[in-house]
Protein backbone atom coordinates (compact mmCIF):
# COMPACT_ATOMS: atom_id res chain seq x y z
CA UNK A 1 0.00 0.00 0.00
CA UNK A 2 1.32 3.38 -0.99
CA UNK A 3 0.48 6.91 -1.99
CA UNK A 4 1.44 7.41 -5.58
CA UNK A 5 1.33 10.38 -7.94
CA UNK A 6 -0.11 8.78 -11.03
CA UNK A 7 -0.49 10.09 -14.57
CA UNK A 8 -3.76 9.87 -16.45
CA UNK A 9 -3.27 7.83 -19.59
CA UNK A 10 -6.83 7.55 -20.90
CA UNK A 11 -10.19 8.85 -19.84
CA UNK A 12 -13.16 7.54 -21.73
CA UNK A 13 -16.80 8.38 -21.28
CA UNK A 14 -18.80 5.20 -21.81
CA UNK A 15 -22.29 6.67 -21.61
CA UNK A 16 -24.98 7.34 -19.02
CA UNK A 17 -22.56 9.08 -16.63
CA UNK A 18 -20.11 6.16 -16.61
CA UNK A 19 -16.45 6.69 -17.45
CA UNK A 20 -13.32 4.60 -17.46
CA UNK A 21 -10.15 6.19 -16.17
CA UNK A 22 -6.78 4.62 -16.90
CA UNK A 23 -3.64 5.78 -15.17
CA UNK A 24 -0.07 4.72 -14.75
CA UNK A 25 0.51 3.60 -11.18
CA UNK A 26 3.35 1.08 -11.17
CA UNK A 27 3.53 0.62 -7.43
CA UNK A 28 -0.19 0.09 -6.86
CA UNK A 29 -0.57 -2.00 -10.00
CA UNK A 30 2.26 -4.22 -8.88
CA UNK A 31 0.39 -5.57 -5.87
CA UNK A 32 -3.35 -5.09 -6.54
CA UNK A 33 -5.77 -8.00 -6.23
CA UNK A 34 -9.42 -8.26 -7.30
CA UNK A 35 -11.81 -6.68 -4.78
CA UNK A 36 -9.31 -4.13 -3.55
CA UNK A 37 -9.87 -0.45 -4.06
CA UNK A 38 -7.97 2.79 -4.36
CA UNK A 39 -8.59 6.04 -2.51
CA UNK A 40 -8.41 8.83 -5.02
CA UNK A 41 -7.88 12.54 -4.47
CA UNK A 42 -10.08 14.26 -7.00
CA UNK A 43 -8.22 17.36 -8.16
CA UNK A 44 -9.79 20.81 -8.31
CA UNK A 45 -12.76 19.79 -6.21
CA UNK A 46 -13.68 23.03 -4.50
CA UNK A 47 -13.40 23.00 -0.74
CA UNK A 48 -13.03 19.23 -0.62
CA UNK A 49 -10.74 17.47 1.84
CA UNK A 50 -11.56 13.79 1.54
CA UNK A 51 -10.50 11.19 -0.99
CA UNK A 52 -13.03 9.00 -2.80
CA UNK A 53 -12.89 5.17 -2.93
CA UNK A 54 -13.08 3.28 -6.24
CA UNK A 55 -12.72 -0.41 -6.93
CA UNK A 56 -9.89 -1.50 -9.13
CA UNK A 57 -11.44 -2.49 -12.41
CA UNK A 58 -8.42 -3.65 -14.39
CA UNK A 59 -4.70 -3.96 -14.01
CA UNK A 60 -2.59 -4.05 -17.18
CA UNK A 61 1.12 -3.97 -16.52
CA UNK A 62 1.80 -0.69 -14.79
CA UNK A 63 -1.66 0.64 -15.50
CA UNK A 64 -4.76 0.68 -13.37
CA UNK A 65 -8.31 1.25 -14.59
CA UNK A 66 -11.29 2.36 -12.63
CA UNK A 67 -14.87 2.42 -13.88
CA UNK A 68 -16.91 5.09 -12.19
CA UNK A 69 -20.29 6.70 -12.32
CA UNK A 70 -20.76 10.44 -11.87
CA UNK A 71 -23.19 10.51 -8.98
CA UNK A 72 -22.19 13.55 -6.95
CA UNK A 73 -19.98 16.58 -6.73
CA UNK A 74 -16.68 14.72 -6.74
CA UNK A 75 -17.33 12.24 -9.47
CA UNK A 76 -18.72 15.02 -11.66
CA UNK A 77 -15.50 16.99 -11.30
CA UNK A 78 -13.52 13.80 -11.88
CA UNK A 79 -15.02 13.70 -15.36
CA UNK A 80 -13.04 16.85 -16.20
CA UNK A 81 -9.69 15.22 -15.55
CA UNK A 82 -7.61 15.20 -18.72
CA UNK A 83 -4.99 12.88 -20.12
CA UNK A 84 -1.63 13.87 -18.66
CA UNK A 85 -3.09 15.17 -15.38
CA UNK A 86 -1.44 13.99 -12.20
CA UNK A 87 -3.57 12.38 -9.52
CA UNK A 88 -2.80 11.20 -6.04
CA UNK A 89 -3.81 7.60 -5.47
CA UNK A 90 -3.65 5.66 -2.21
CA UNK A 91 -3.80 1.93 -2.61
CA UNK A 92 -4.37 -0.84 -3.07
CA UNK A 93 -6.61 -0.87 -0.03
CA UNK A 94 -8.76 -3.44 1.68
CA UNK A 95 -8.92 -7.19 1.37
CA UNK A 96 -9.57 -9.18 -1.78
CA UNK A 97 -12.05 -11.79 -2.94
CA UNK A 98 -11.16 -15.30 -1.75
CA UNK A 99 -10.39 -17.44 -4.78
CA UNK A 100 -12.77 -20.33 -5.32
CA UNK A 101 -11.59 -23.89 -5.76
CA UNK A 102 -11.44 -25.59 -9.13
CA UNK A 103 -14.43 -27.71 -8.24
CA UNK A 104 -16.55 -24.69 -7.41
CA UNK A 105 -18.57 -22.56 -9.79
CA UNK A 106 -18.17 -18.79 -9.53
CA UNK A 107 -21.35 -16.77 -9.83
CA UNK A 108 -20.98 -13.03 -10.22
CA UNK A 109 -23.90 -10.85 -9.26
CA UNK A 110 -23.40 -7.21 -10.14
CA UNK A 111 -25.38 -3.99 -10.09
CA UNK A 112 -24.23 -0.85 -11.90
CA UNK A 113 -20.53 -0.08 -11.37
CA UNK A 114 -20.39 -3.07 -9.01
CA UNK A 115 -19.44 -5.05 -12.08
CA UNK A 116 -15.98 -3.45 -12.08
CA UNK A 117 -14.25 -5.46 -9.32
CA UNK A 118 -16.05 -8.62 -10.47
CA UNK A 119 -14.64 -8.20 -13.94
CA UNK A 120 -11.14 -8.02 -12.46
CA UNK A 121 -11.94 -11.12 -10.38
CA UNK A 122 -13.38 -13.14 -13.25
CA UNK A 123 -10.08 -12.87 -15.10
CA UNK A 124 -8.07 -14.33 -12.26
CA UNK A 125 -10.22 -17.26 -11.17
CA UNK A 126 -9.22 -20.78 -12.11
CA UNK A 127 -12.69 -21.57 -13.50
CA UNK A 128 -15.21 -19.89 -15.77
CA UNK A 129 -18.42 -18.69 -14.19
CA UNK A 130 -21.72 -17.02 -14.78
CA UNK A 131 -22.39 -13.28 -14.58
CA UNK A 132 -25.75 -11.93 -13.52
CA UNK A 133 -25.73 -8.23 -14.12
CA UNK A 134 -28.47 -5.71 -13.51
CA UNK A 135 -29.23 -2.06 -13.71
CA UNK A 136 -31.96 0.49 -14.21
CA UNK A 137 -31.66 0.47 -17.97
CA UNK A 138 -29.55 -0.89 -20.82
CA UNK A 139 -26.97 1.88 -20.31
CA UNK A 140 -26.28 0.56 -16.84
CA UNK A 141 -25.18 -2.82 -18.14
CA UNK A 142 -21.43 -2.60 -18.38
CA UNK A 143 -18.34 -4.72 -18.96
CA UNK A 144 -20.16 -7.50 -20.80
CA UNK A 145 -17.18 -7.80 -23.15
CA UNK A 146 -14.83 -8.44 -20.26
CA UNK A 147 -16.84 -11.43 -19.13
CA UNK A 148 -17.32 -12.73 -22.65
CA UNK A 149 -13.58 -12.58 -23.11
CA UNK A 150 -13.13 -15.03 -20.26
CA UNK A 151 -15.96 -17.23 -21.48
CA UNK A 152 -18.42 -16.46 -18.72
CA UNK A 153 -22.10 -17.09 -19.21
CA UNK A 154 -24.05 -13.89 -19.00
CA UNK A 155 -27.57 -13.09 -17.82
CA UNK A 156 -28.88 -9.57 -17.84
CA UNK A 157 -31.79 -7.87 -16.10
CA UNK A 158 -32.94 -4.27 -16.28
CA UNK A 159 -35.63 -2.57 -14.29
CA UNK A 160 -37.09 -1.01 -17.41
CA UNK A 161 -36.67 -4.16 -19.47
CA UNK A 162 -34.66 -2.36 -22.15
CA UNK A 163 -32.23 -5.25 -22.28
CA UNK A 164 -32.36 -8.74 -20.77
CA UNK A 165 -35.05 -9.79 -18.41
CA UNK A 166 -37.31 -7.16 -16.88
CA UNK A 167 -36.78 -6.69 -13.14
CA UNK A 168 -33.99 -7.02 -10.62
CA UNK A 169 -30.89 -9.05 -11.28
CA UNK A 170 -31.85 -11.42 -8.48
CA UNK A 171 -34.68 -12.73 -10.70
CA UNK A 172 -32.59 -14.44 -13.42
CA UNK A 173 -30.18 -15.57 -10.75
CA UNK A 174 -32.92 -17.33 -8.77
CA UNK A 175 -34.24 -18.98 -11.89
CA UNK A 176 -30.76 -20.20 -12.74
CA UNK A 177 -30.16 -21.33 -9.18
CA UNK A 178 -33.32 -23.46 -9.13
CA UNK A 179 -32.19 -25.28 -12.23
CA UNK A 180 -28.40 -25.52 -11.79
CA UNK A 181 -27.54 -24.29 -8.34
CA UNK A 182 -27.67 -27.59 -6.54
CA UNK A 183 -25.56 -29.32 -9.15
CA UNK A 184 -22.51 -27.10 -9.28
CA UNK A 185 -21.20 -25.87 -5.87
CA UNK A 186 -21.73 -22.20 -6.63
CA UNK A 187 -19.67 -19.47 -4.96
CA UNK A 188 -21.32 -16.08 -5.19
CA UNK A 189 -19.30 -12.91 -5.61
CA UNK A 190 -21.45 -9.82 -5.49
CA UNK A 191 -21.01 -6.06 -5.68
CA UNK A 192 -23.64 -3.37 -6.17
CA UNK A 193 -26.29 -1.36 -4.36
CA UNK A 194 -26.98 -2.16 -0.70
CA UNK A 195 -30.47 -3.53 -1.31
CA UNK A 196 -29.14 -5.95 -3.92
CA UNK A 197 -26.30 -7.08 -1.68
CA UNK A 198 -28.70 -7.76 1.10
CA UNK A 199 -31.10 -9.73 -1.08
CA UNK A 200 -28.24 -11.78 -2.48
CA UNK A 201 -26.62 -12.25 0.92
CA UNK A 202 -29.79 -13.36 2.66
CA UNK A 203 -30.64 -15.77 -0.14
CA UNK A 204 -27.14 -17.24 -0.02
CA UNK A 205 -27.26 -17.73 3.73
CA UNK A 206 -30.74 -19.27 3.58
CA UNK A 207 -29.55 -21.67 0.89
CA UNK A 208 -26.17 -22.33 2.39
CA UNK A 209 -24.26 -20.97 -0.56
CA UNK A 210 -20.73 -19.61 -0.11
CA UNK A 211 -21.10 -15.92 -0.79
CA UNK A 212 -18.80 -12.89 -0.71
CA UNK A 213 -20.15 -9.37 -0.77
CA UNK A 214 -18.24 -6.19 -1.47
CA UNK A 215 -19.70 -3.48 0.79
CA UNK A 216 -19.93 0.23 0.09
CA UNK A 217 -19.74 2.75 2.96
CA UNK A 218 -18.84 6.39 3.17
CA UNK A 219 -15.15 6.56 3.95
CA UNK A 220 -12.85 9.02 5.62
CA UNK A 221 -9.34 7.65 5.84
CA UNK A 222 -9.81 4.48 3.78
CA UNK A 223 -7.14 2.85 5.86
CA UNK A 224 -8.76 1.80 9.12
CA UNK A 225 -8.03 4.83 11.27
CA UNK A 226 -11.20 6.91 11.45
CA UNK A 227 -13.94 4.31 12.02
CA UNK A 228 -16.32 6.03 9.60
CA UNK A 229 -17.06 2.87 7.65
CA UNK A 230 -17.85 0.16 10.15
CA UNK A 231 -20.14 -2.81 9.59
CA UNK A 232 -21.51 -5.07 12.29
CA UNK A 233 -20.44 -8.68 11.68
CA UNK A 234 -20.43 -11.95 13.61
CA UNK A 235 -16.90 -12.96 14.51
CA UNK A 236 -15.60 -16.53 14.67
CA UNK A 237 -17.27 -16.99 18.07
CA UNK A 238 -20.55 -15.58 16.85
CA UNK A 239 -20.23 -12.35 18.82
CA UNK A 240 -21.28 -9.19 17.05
CA UNK A 241 -18.29 -6.93 16.44
CA UNK A 242 -17.73 -3.89 14.28
CA UNK A 243 -15.35 -4.29 11.36
CA UNK A 244 -13.95 -1.55 9.17
CA UNK A 245 -15.10 -1.91 5.58
CA UNK A 246 -11.99 -0.12 4.33
CA UNK A 247 -9.49 -2.26 6.16
CA UNK A 248 -11.15 -5.53 7.25
CA UNK A 249 -13.31 -5.41 4.09
CA UNK A 250 -14.64 -4.36 1.66
CA UNK A 251 -15.22 -8.09 1.08
CA UNK A 252 -17.19 -9.95 3.73
CA UNK A 253 -18.74 -13.38 3.67
CA UNK A 254 -22.51 -13.08 3.56
CA UNK A 255 -23.09 -15.16 6.66
CA UNK A 256 -20.90 -12.90 8.78
CA UNK A 257 -22.94 -9.79 8.10
CA UNK A 258 -25.44 -8.45 10.62
CA UNK A 259 -28.12 -6.76 8.53
CA UNK A 260 -29.76 -3.92 10.34
CA UNK A 261 -33.14 -2.26 10.02
CA UNK A 262 -33.03 0.72 7.72
Amino acid at each position, binding site marked *: *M*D*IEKVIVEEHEYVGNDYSVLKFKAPIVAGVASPGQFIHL*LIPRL*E*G*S*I*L*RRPFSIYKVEGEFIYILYKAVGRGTKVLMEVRVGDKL*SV*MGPLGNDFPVCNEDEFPVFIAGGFGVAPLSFLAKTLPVKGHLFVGGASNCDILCIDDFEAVDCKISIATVDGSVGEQGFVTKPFMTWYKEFGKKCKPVIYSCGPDAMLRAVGEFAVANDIKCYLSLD*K*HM*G*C*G*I*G*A*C*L*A*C*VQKVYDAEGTIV*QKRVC*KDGPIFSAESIVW*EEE
Partner: protein
Amino acid sequence: MKPDLSIDIAGIKMKNPITVASGTFGYGPEYADLVDLNELGAITVKGISREPWDGNSLPRIAEVFGGMVNAIGLQNPGVEGFCEKYLPFLRNYDLPVIVNIWGKTVVDYAETARMLSDHEGIDALEVNISCPNIKEGGISFGTVPESSAEVISAVRKVTKLPIIPKLSPNVSDIKVFAKVAEEEGADAISLINTIPAMVIDIDKRRPFLANVTGGLSGPAIHPVAVKMVWEAASVVDIPVIAMGGAVDAKTVIEFLLAGATAVALGTINFRNPLTITEVVKGIENYMVKNDFESVDQIKMNF
Protein backbone atom coordinates in the same frame (compact mmCIF):
# COMPACT_ATOMS: atom_id res chain seq x y z
CA MET B 1 23.26 25.45 11.84
CA LYS B 2 20.48 22.92 11.94
CA PRO B 3 17.75 24.22 14.20
CA ASP B 4 16.67 22.15 17.17
CA LEU B 5 13.07 21.03 16.63
CA SER B 6 12.76 19.13 19.88
CA ILE B 7 10.37 20.24 22.58
CA ASP B 8 9.41 19.18 26.05
CA ILE B 9 5.78 19.07 27.10
CA ALA B 10 5.22 18.20 30.72
CA GLY B 11 8.31 16.03 30.71
CA ILE B 12 7.47 14.34 27.43
CA LYS B 13 10.41 14.72 25.09
CA MET B 14 9.25 15.16 21.52
CA LYS B 15 11.80 15.22 18.71
CA ASN B 16 9.64 17.75 16.91
CA PRO B 17 6.47 19.65 17.78
CA ILE B 18 4.18 17.54 15.59
CA THR B 19 1.69 15.03 16.88
CA VAL B 20 -1.62 13.79 15.46
CA ALA B 21 -5.13 14.63 16.61
CA SER B 22 -6.93 11.91 18.51
CA GLY B 23 -9.31 9.96 16.31
CA THR B 24 -7.61 10.85 13.06
CA PHE B 25 -4.71 8.42 13.22
CA GLY B 26 -6.14 5.32 14.83
CA TYR B 27 -3.91 3.58 17.36
CA GLY B 28 -0.67 3.41 15.42
CA PRO B 29 -0.66 0.42 13.07
CA GLU B 30 -3.17 1.90 10.62
CA TYR B 31 -0.82 4.40 9.01
CA ALA B 32 2.41 2.63 9.85
CA ASP B 33 2.83 1.30 6.29
CA LEU B 34 2.67 4.81 4.86
CA VAL B 35 4.27 6.95 7.52
CA ASP B 36 7.40 6.24 9.50
CA LEU B 37 5.93 6.69 12.97
CA ASN B 38 9.35 7.65 14.26
CA GLU B 39 8.99 10.91 12.35
CA LEU B 40 6.25 12.03 14.72
CA GLY B 41 7.05 14.02 17.82
CA ALA B 42 4.39 11.99 19.60
CA ILE B 43 1.36 9.90 18.72
CA THR B 44 -2.04 10.69 20.19
CA VAL B 45 -4.39 7.74 19.87
CA LYS B 46 -8.15 7.62 19.40
CA GLY B 47 -10.21 8.22 22.58
CA ILE B 48 -10.30 5.30 25.00
CA SER B 49 -12.98 4.58 27.57
CA ARG B 50 -13.13 2.18 30.50
CA GLU B 51 -15.11 -0.42 28.56
CA PRO B 52 -15.28 -1.04 24.80
CA TRP B 53 -17.77 1.28 23.11
CA ASP B 54 -19.62 0.89 19.82
CA GLY B 55 -20.13 4.50 18.83
CA ASN B 56 -22.91 5.79 16.62
CA SER B 57 -24.81 4.36 13.69
CA LEU B 58 -23.78 5.17 10.13
CA PRO B 59 -23.43 7.53 8.30
CA ARG B 60 -20.84 8.84 10.69
CA ILE B 61 -19.16 11.42 8.47
CA ALA B 62 -20.17 14.04 5.96
CA GLU B 63 -17.86 16.07 3.80
CA VAL B 64 -18.42 19.83 3.84
CA PHE B 65 -16.64 22.82 2.35
CA GLY B 66 -13.24 23.00 4.03
CA GLY B 67 -13.61 19.91 6.14
CA MET B 68 -15.90 17.24 7.45
CA VAL B 69 -18.51 16.75 10.11
CA ASN B 70 -18.08 13.57 12.11
CA ALA B 71 -20.13 11.73 14.66
CA ILE B 72 -18.11 8.56 15.05
CA GLY B 73 -19.32 8.46 18.62
CA LEU B 74 -16.02 7.50 20.22
CA GLN B 75 -16.04 3.83 19.20
CA ASN B 76 -13.08 2.15 20.88
CA PRO B 77 -11.87 -1.20 22.24
CA GLY B 78 -11.74 0.00 25.86
CA VAL B 79 -8.70 0.19 28.14
CA GLU B 80 -7.93 -3.51 28.12
CA GLY B 81 -8.48 -3.88 24.39
CA PHE B 82 -6.19 -0.98 23.68
CA CYS B 83 -3.46 -2.14 26.03
CA GLU B 84 -3.46 -5.66 24.67
CA LYS B 85 -3.86 -4.91 21.00
CA TYR B 86 -1.97 -1.69 20.45
CA LEU B 87 0.43 -0.82 23.27
CA PRO B 88 2.91 -3.62 22.46
CA PHE B 89 2.98 -2.41 18.86
CA LEU B 90 3.60 1.19 19.87
CA ARG B 91 6.47 0.19 22.15
CA ASN B 92 8.46 -0.80 19.06
CA TYR B 93 8.82 2.83 18.14
CA ASP B 94 10.84 5.68 19.53
CA LEU B 95 7.62 7.59 20.04
CA PRO B 96 5.93 9.13 23.07
CA VAL B 97 2.37 7.82 23.35
CA ILE B 98 -0.41 10.16 24.44
CA VAL B 99 -3.63 8.31 25.19
CA ASN B 100 -6.83 10.26 24.76
CA ILE B 101 -9.49 9.28 27.29
CA TRP B 102 -13.16 10.03 27.80
CA GLY B 103 -16.07 9.05 29.98
CA LYS B 104 -19.71 9.65 30.59
CA THR B 105 -19.30 10.28 34.28
CA VAL B 106 -16.52 11.69 36.41
CA VAL B 107 -15.94 8.22 37.80
CA ASP B 108 -15.53 6.87 34.25
CA TYR B 109 -12.79 9.37 33.55
CA ALA B 110 -10.94 8.66 36.78
CA GLU B 111 -11.25 4.92 36.39
CA THR B 112 -10.00 5.01 32.81
CA ALA B 113 -7.04 7.12 33.86
CA ARG B 114 -6.25 4.88 36.79
CA MET B 115 -6.39 1.71 34.71
CA LEU B 116 -4.14 3.16 32.00
CA SER B 117 -1.62 4.38 34.57
CA ASP B 118 -0.83 0.79 35.44
CA HIS B 119 0.47 0.08 31.95
CA GLU B 120 3.96 0.55 30.61
CA GLY B 121 4.53 2.66 27.55
CA ILE B 122 2.05 5.47 28.06
CA ASP B 123 3.60 8.90 28.30
CA ALA B 124 0.59 11.13 28.96
CA LEU B 125 -3.19 11.20 29.10
CA GLU B 126 -5.17 13.64 27.01
CA VAL B 127 -8.51 14.15 28.72
CA ASN B 128 -11.30 14.81 26.24
CA ILE B 129 -13.79 16.86 28.25
CA SER B 130 -16.04 17.60 25.29
CA CYS B 131 -18.21 14.55 25.94
CA PRO B 132 -21.78 14.77 27.04
CA ASN B 133 -22.16 14.69 30.80
CA ILE B 134 -24.79 12.03 31.26
CA LYS B 135 -25.64 13.17 34.78
CA GLU B 136 -26.13 16.77 33.72
CA GLY B 137 -28.51 15.81 30.97
CA GLY B 138 -26.03 15.56 28.17
CA ILE B 139 -24.44 18.97 28.41
CA SER B 140 -20.76 18.67 27.70
CA PHE B 141 -18.38 18.61 30.67
CA GLY B 142 -16.19 20.95 28.70
CA THR B 143 -18.67 23.81 28.48
CA VAL B 144 -19.20 24.28 32.21
CA PRO B 145 -16.14 25.39 34.20
CA GLU B 146 -17.19 23.49 37.35
CA SER B 147 -17.71 20.22 35.48
CA SER B 148 -14.40 20.63 33.70
CA ALA B 149 -12.72 21.20 37.02
CA GLU B 150 -14.35 18.13 38.51
CA VAL B 151 -13.18 15.86 35.71
CA ILE B 152 -9.66 17.21 35.66
CA SER B 153 -9.21 17.06 39.39
CA ALA B 154 -10.60 13.52 39.55
CA VAL B 155 -8.14 12.39 36.90
CA ARG B 156 -5.32 14.33 38.56
CA LYS B 157 -5.86 12.41 41.80
CA VAL B 158 -5.50 8.95 40.30
CA THR B 159 -2.51 9.29 38.02
CA LYS B 160 1.08 10.43 38.06
CA LEU B 161 1.15 10.60 34.28
CA PRO B 162 1.12 14.09 32.78
CA ILE B 163 -2.49 15.04 32.03
CA ILE B 164 -3.59 17.21 29.13
CA PRO B 165 -7.23 18.33 29.25
CA LYS B 166 -8.56 18.82 25.74
CA LEU B 167 -10.78 21.88 25.66
CA SER B 168 -14.03 22.31 23.81
CA PRO B 169 -14.32 25.26 21.43
CA ASN B 170 -18.02 25.47 22.20
CA VAL B 171 -17.60 28.12 24.90
CA SER B 172 -17.80 31.91 24.95
CA ASP B 173 -14.46 32.42 26.67
CA ILE B 174 -11.78 29.77 26.30
CA LYS B 175 -9.52 31.58 28.76
CA VAL B 176 -11.75 30.55 31.65
CA PHE B 177 -11.36 26.89 30.75
CA ALA B 178 -7.63 27.13 30.15
CA LYS B 179 -7.20 28.59 33.61
CA VAL B 180 -9.45 25.99 35.23
CA ALA B 181 -7.30 23.27 33.69
CA GLU B 182 -4.10 24.84 34.98
CA GLU B 183 -5.53 25.32 38.45
CA GLU B 184 -6.68 21.74 38.67
CA GLY B 185 -3.17 20.50 38.04
CA ALA B 186 -3.04 19.90 34.30
CA ASP B 187 0.46 19.59 32.86
CA ALA B 188 -0.56 20.97 29.50
CA ILE B 189 -3.79 21.72 27.61
CA SER B 190 -4.81 20.85 24.10
CA LEU B 191 -7.36 22.55 21.86
CA ILE B 192 -9.56 22.69 19.91
CA ASN B 193 -11.90 19.78 19.61
CA THR B 194 -14.39 19.79 16.73
CA ILE B 195 -17.05 22.52 16.58
CA PRO B 196 -20.67 21.31 16.91
CA ALA B 197 -22.24 21.23 13.45
CA MET B 198 -24.95 19.67 11.33
CA VAL B 199 -25.47 18.70 7.71
CA ILE B 200 -28.88 18.17 6.17
CA ASP B 201 -29.60 15.96 3.18
CA ILE B 202 -31.90 18.14 1.12
CA ASP B 203 -33.10 15.27 -1.05
CA LYS B 204 -33.95 12.93 1.79
CA ARG B 205 -35.06 15.88 3.91
CA ARG B 206 -33.39 14.67 7.05
CA PRO B 207 -30.10 15.10 8.88
CA PHE B 208 -27.28 13.49 6.96
CA LEU B 209 -25.62 11.89 9.97
CA ALA B 210 -27.35 9.13 11.89
CA ASN B 211 -26.44 11.02 15.06
CA VAL B 212 -28.15 14.16 13.66
CA THR B 213 -25.32 16.47 14.74
CA GLY B 214 -21.56 16.06 14.71
CA GLY B 215 -18.33 17.99 14.97
CA LEU B 216 -16.72 20.13 12.29
CA SER B 217 -13.00 19.66 11.63
CA GLY B 218 -10.56 20.57 8.90
CA PRO B 219 -9.20 23.82 7.43
CA ALA B 220 -12.62 25.49 7.89
CA ILE B 221 -12.01 25.78 11.62
CA HIS B 222 -8.39 26.88 11.56
CA PRO B 223 -8.89 30.64 12.13
CA VAL B 224 -11.22 29.85 15.03
CA ALA B 225 -8.65 27.50 16.53
CA VAL B 226 -5.82 30.01 16.13
CA LYS B 227 -7.77 32.60 18.06
CA MET B 228 -8.57 30.19 20.87
CA VAL B 229 -5.00 28.90 21.08
CA TRP B 230 -3.71 32.46 21.20
CA GLU B 231 -6.11 33.38 23.99
CA ALA B 232 -5.53 30.21 25.98
CA ALA B 233 -1.74 30.44 25.67
CA SER B 234 -1.86 34.01 26.90
CA VAL B 235 -3.38 33.10 30.26
CA VAL B 236 -1.62 29.91 31.29
CA ASP B 237 1.98 28.95 31.98
CA ILE B 238 1.56 25.30 31.04
CA PRO B 239 2.26 24.35 27.42
CA VAL B 240 -0.47 24.29 24.78
CA ILE B 241 -0.94 21.62 22.12
CA ALA B 242 -2.82 23.20 19.24
CA MET B 243 -5.08 21.55 16.69
CA GLY B 244 -7.93 22.43 14.38
CA GLY B 245 -7.46 22.71 10.65
CA ALA B 246 -3.70 22.54 10.52
CA VAL B 247 -2.93 21.28 7.01
CA ASP B 248 0.55 22.49 6.11
CA ALA B 249 3.62 24.23 7.48
CA LYS B 250 1.93 27.62 7.26
CA THR B 251 -1.12 26.69 9.31
CA VAL B 252 1.05 24.85 11.82
CA ILE B 253 3.42 27.79 12.19
CA GLU B 254 0.46 30.09 12.83
CA PHE B 255 -0.28 27.94 15.87
CA LEU B 256 3.33 28.14 17.05
CA LEU B 257 3.30 31.91 16.63
CA ALA B 258 0.03 32.02 18.57
CA GLY B 259 1.81 30.41 21.48
CA ALA B 260 1.42 26.66 21.02
CA THR B 261 4.31 24.42 21.98
CA ALA B 262 3.17 21.51 19.84
CA VAL B 263 0.65 21.07 17.04
CA ALA B 264 -1.51 18.10 16.09
CA LEU B 265 -2.45 17.26 12.52
CA GLY B 266 -5.97 15.87 12.30
CA THR B 267 -8.35 15.67 9.37
CA ILE B 268 -5.54 16.35 6.91
CA ASN B 269 -4.21 12.84 7.61
CA PHE B 270 -7.20 11.43 5.73
CA ARG B 271 -6.23 13.43 2.68
CA ASN B 272 -2.52 12.97 2.92
CA PRO B 273 -0.76 11.36 5.87
CA LEU B 274 2.58 12.36 4.36
CA THR B 275 1.76 15.91 5.43
CA ILE B 276 3.49 15.00 8.69
CA THR B 277 6.86 14.79 6.97
CA GLU B 278 6.26 17.91 4.89
CA VAL B 279 5.28 19.93 7.92
CA VAL B 280 8.30 18.91 9.97
CA LYS B 281 10.51 19.92 7.05
CA GLY B 282 8.54 23.16 6.65
CA ILE B 283 9.02 24.13 10.28
CA GLU B 284 12.72 23.46 9.95
CA ASN B 285 12.94 25.68 6.87
CA TYR B 286 11.01 28.41 8.60
CA MET B 287 13.36 28.27 11.56
CA VAL B 288 16.41 28.45 9.32
CA LYS B 289 14.98 31.38 7.40
CA ASN B 290 14.14 33.28 10.56
CA ASP B 291 17.26 32.30 12.47
CA PHE B 292 15.44 30.44 15.18
CA GLU B 293 17.51 27.92 17.06
CA SER B 294 14.71 26.37 19.06
CA VAL B 295 10.98 26.01 18.66
CA ASP B 296 10.10 28.23 21.62
CA GLN B 297 11.63 31.20 19.81
CA ILE B 298 8.88 31.06 17.20
CA LYS B 299 6.14 32.42 19.46
CA MET B 300 5.29 35.95 18.40
CA ASN B 301 5.93 38.85 20.74
CA PHE B 302 2.54 40.33 20.80
